[in-house]
């Protein structure tokens, strides 16, 4: 494939054949060399074929092979004449990350760390199937979750009213239509609200290990050695079912609308078509389920940590720093060729990164920019970055989302054989509980790329800049 270097961190796949725009990949030379071996660059090129795509088909430095769209892919579609594609969002609709920060310091919690992780593991369901028995959703409840998102949980006493000020879209997409979420999807979700799931999802107790930008960290309420909690989870079976059903519809719809696609998984329909509108309404409802899911889990995490420390929940000072979506399609406004355009931005493994002063940057952070949360693997670190003007101008206000795997699950299990990973992690000061032993092996730190490399590229490219590094001390997983 033809690839031209634009500058230190940008590579162009020039428009050719049926491509409507160029592809642009943010990466360094070493990453680009690695990418030659998989299909992800071809996927960037394939996305450039979608009707109504604006600017370029973009990929962030954590780009890797996905279903149809690459993971780390960003595509902005004209809201009037463009298409929407479920593959540009992914199966786990509104998979995302929430960060909470406390008033506690590392030394205050270290002696009780095991107790804290045990409480978290007992109170926040992980792994197969069901959420907590004390949260079962009636049909009315489900309607509330799907239309109101995080606010539904807060009304039920699962959180604080001002949590909403620090969640992307205030924890609810506006165009959600619960009636468009099938009975099957609701049934998959009915018992799963407030559950982490499995795979790379996690809940971590962390501490602030490094501060790179003092004024912005202070605006985010972060200080060195502070205890934080990070939650990485999404819309569970409900979102998976919505994606699966609409992919299926879109395969036929793409044929019907005469859209020629290089890969069936890019199946799509015009945003204004009945199929496009149906997907967008159902996707927004599933996204709201995910916002509510992270809200419920963060409430239980606050309770669990306080209980383990033997104090009232208010005494830990936990508050939401921010909550981001990294698998989503949203309507946002950008200047393109000097004109204001409404764009349906598909972010599949990409995080919004809005600058200071933007009306969509949440009010508490409007002077500094939107917090960007980038989770890493369970043995190393995660990052807090801040959004920039450059991202707004170049990438539809988007940046990277995480590390990405480098070993298959089987390779990871082979690599772990004979090692006690739990003990290894404990020696590094990280206490872990997981529902399945296989998960710990498959999710071993070495199975992932170093997220610091990804963060370095977006920092140097100016798509978002480093604010703080967080290191895990307690982990629960599925």
């Amino acid at each position, binding site marked *: 494939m033809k690839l031209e270097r634009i500058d230190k961190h940008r590579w162009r796949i020039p428009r050719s054949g049926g491509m409507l725009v160029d592809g642009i990949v943010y990466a360094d030379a070493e990453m680009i060399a690695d990418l030659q071996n998989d299909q992800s660059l071809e996927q960037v090129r394939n996305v450039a074929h979608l009707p109504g795509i604006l600017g370029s088909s973009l990929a962030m430095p954590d780009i890797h*092979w996905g*279903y149809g769209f690459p993971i780390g892919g960003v595509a902005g579609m004209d809201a009037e004449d463009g298409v929407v594609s479920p593959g540009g969002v992914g*199966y*786990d609709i509104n998979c995302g990350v929430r960060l909470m920060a406390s008033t506690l310091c590392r030394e205050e919690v270290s002696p009780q760390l095991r107790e804290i992780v045990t409480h978290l593991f007992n109170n926040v369901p992980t792994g197969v199937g069901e959420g907590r028995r004390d949260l079962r959703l009636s049909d009315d409840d489900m309607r509330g979750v799907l239309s109101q998102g995080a606010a539904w949980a807060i009304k039920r006493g699962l959180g604080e009213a001002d949590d909403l000020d620090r969640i992307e879209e205030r924890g609810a997409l506006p165009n959600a239509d619960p009636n468009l979420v099938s009975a099957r999807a609701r049934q998959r979700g009915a018992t799963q609200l407030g559950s982490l799931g499995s*795979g790379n999802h996690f809940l971590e107790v962390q501490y602030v290990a490094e501060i790179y930008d003092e004024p912005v960290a202070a605006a985010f309420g972060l200080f060195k050695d502070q205890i934080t909690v990070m939650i990485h989870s999404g819309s569970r079976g409900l979102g998976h079912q919505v994606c699966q059903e609409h992919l*299926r519809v879109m395969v036929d719809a793409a044929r019907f609308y005469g859209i020629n696609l290089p890969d*069936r998984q890019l199946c799509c329909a015009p945003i204004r078509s009945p199929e496009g509108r149906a997907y967008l309404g159902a996707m927004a409802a599933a996204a709201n389920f995910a916002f509510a899911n992270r809200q419920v889990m963060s409430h239980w995490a606050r309770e669990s940590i306080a209980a383990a420390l033997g104090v009232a929940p208010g005494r830990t000072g936990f508050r939401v720093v921010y909550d981001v979506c990294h698998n989503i399609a949203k309507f946002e406004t950008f200047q393109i060729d000097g004109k204001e355009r409404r764009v349906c931005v598909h972010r599949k493994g990409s995080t919004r990164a809005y600058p200071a002063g933007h009306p969509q940057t949440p009010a508490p952070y409007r002077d500094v920019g939107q917090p960007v949360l980038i989770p890493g693997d369970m043995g190393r670190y995660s990052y807090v970055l801040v959004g920039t003007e450059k991202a707004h101008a170049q990438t539809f206000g988007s940046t990277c989302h995480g590390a990405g795997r480098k*070993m*298959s*699950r089987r390779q990871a299990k082979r690599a772990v054989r004979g090692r006690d990973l739990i003990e290894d992690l404990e020696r590094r000061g990280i206490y872990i509980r997981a529902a399945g032993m296989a998960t710990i092996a498959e999710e071993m730190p070495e199975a992932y790329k170093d997220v610091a490399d990804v963060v370095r590229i977006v920092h140097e490219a100016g798509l978002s800049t480093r604010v703080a590094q967080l290191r895990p001390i307690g982990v629960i997983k599925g």
Partner: protein
Amino acid sequence: MTPQGFTFVDHTADVAVRLRGATLDDLFAAAAGALTAVITVPEAVVPRRSFTVALEASDLELLLVDWVGELLYRFETEQLLVATAQARLAEQGGRWRVNAEISGETRDPARHPIKVLVKAVTFHGLRIERGPDGYETLLVFDI
């Protein structure tokens, strides 16, 4: 290839299996067996209850995704694990149908440890091809 008609293929982020069957009926039965083997230890799943499934789609690949998706839905909502599946495929008027009799059991955590949980069945690399020995395709599960 196992007698069940599938083998695991190494995959960086997710789980992939290669399915093979002398007939389309066998290929679909192999897909059901593969789902069970992805989720848990298939030898520990025995037929205790049965049910039927009937699905229709405009082509065979869509039908295969619907078929495995149906079984995944049953697992997530009823904890149902498939022991055996007898599938009968038929084409009529350009559409494909599957009628199947399935037997299996409700998951018992003591006997059925979870290997991984499947989010969805994908279209990636999915192309049912006919060779001299029957039918074959890759099937990738999103984990």
